[in-house]
């Protein structure tokens, strides 16, 4: 991982930068743990979906949203450990080529929430190389915050799925997601215009 000439960024900072760019009710799916906490802390939006379990399914869930609503951009925020649990999903997404799906991988090389144990990939595997090898041609490491913002802008204007990976530090998430799955799902469906509140 040190071989890469990329800056170590902060999850909450880059999540806030991403959210600030969303002007069209884009959907955002937050993976479990700190990814989710920082999404919540960056400012709750009805178009945010917060996972409370099922580690590794942020990209598949976002893919489902993207297939259901092809005119809406859909983001997914996933940790490196979570992505490792479901690498096959990258090939599925590459095969389907959803034009509106943007995957963001927050890589700190550790299972932070369970006590910061290193993942098996830490120091040996390159997640962007894996994504490229899975068929996701529009995959890149963000060099720094400015580059991350540039990559997000680019991803929002292309007609193919994009994957952006960044190295992040080991700072814990800033907020704590409220753990009410039904309320989270209902709010999300209202936010996507699928349902009206009672």
């Amino acid at each position, binding site marked *: 991982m040190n071989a890469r000439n990329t800056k170590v960024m902060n999850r909450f900072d880059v999540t806030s930068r991403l959210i600030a760019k969303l002007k069209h009710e884009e959907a955002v799916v937050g993976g479990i743990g700190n990814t989710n906490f920082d999404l919540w802390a960056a400012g709750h939006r009805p178009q945010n979906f917060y996972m409370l379990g099922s580690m*590794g399914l942020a990209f*598949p869930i976002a*893919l489902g949203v993207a297939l259901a*609503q092809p005119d809406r951009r859909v983001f997914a925020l996933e940790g490196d450990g979570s992505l490792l649990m479901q690498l*096959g999903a990258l090939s599925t997404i590459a095969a389907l080529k959803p034009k509106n799906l943007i995957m963001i991988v927050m890589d700190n090389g550790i299972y932070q929430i369970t006590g910061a144990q290193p993942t098996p990939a830490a120091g040996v595997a390159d997640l962007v190389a894996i994504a490229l090898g899975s068929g996701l041609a529009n995959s890149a490491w963000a060099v720094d915050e400015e580059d991350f913002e540039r990559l997000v802008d680019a991803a929002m204007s292309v007609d193919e799925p994009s994957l952006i990976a960044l190295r992040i530090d080991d700072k814990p998430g800033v907020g704590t997601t409220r753990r009410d799955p039904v309320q989270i799902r209902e709010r999300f469906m209202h936010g996507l215009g699928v349902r009206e509140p009672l």
Partner: protein
Amino acid sequence: MATAEQQTSSQAGAGSGDRSWHSIVLQTLKRNEISLIPYVPDRVLTPLIKNLHADPFFTTFATAREEEAVGIVSGAWMGGRRGAVLMQTSGFATLANTLASLAVPYQIPLIMFVSERGTLGEFNYGQSLVCRTMRPVLDSLALEHHTITRLDELEFIADRSIKQAVTTQAPVALILNPLLTGGKTFDK
């Protein structure tokens, strides 16, 4: 392998007036506006998967794992599109965590068609053992499930179960028994 293929394709049928089990499943999905069908393959499901691929109403595709397929149809439901997952018994066995942490607590009408291996002439010891874990897992999560053995009951059970899943926002497993499908036989 060729013989096993023959075994299933002999029941495949083709025409729209066809009352094969897989044609009934396809028509029932269509009638209930279920159009997104991720699957992990199974020999017995081959004619259904083939016909779903051939029908432009459906978006049908393979996933690398059953959990992934459940994530996809869950996301699609929240986005306003209905889906169903096709898998075999051993694939269901990989789903306990996803059912307990996504489909059940978020109240998502996850519709699962499970081709039943491990019973009525199973030849693979691993399949017969894993089959015995399926209903205890479904029962322990209080999940609605039905085992379909008869062609004349298939449409009723599938159609009503799908409607119940959607209206009660709860997952359902429809288990396709070898008595219905012919199953897979040890003749390769």
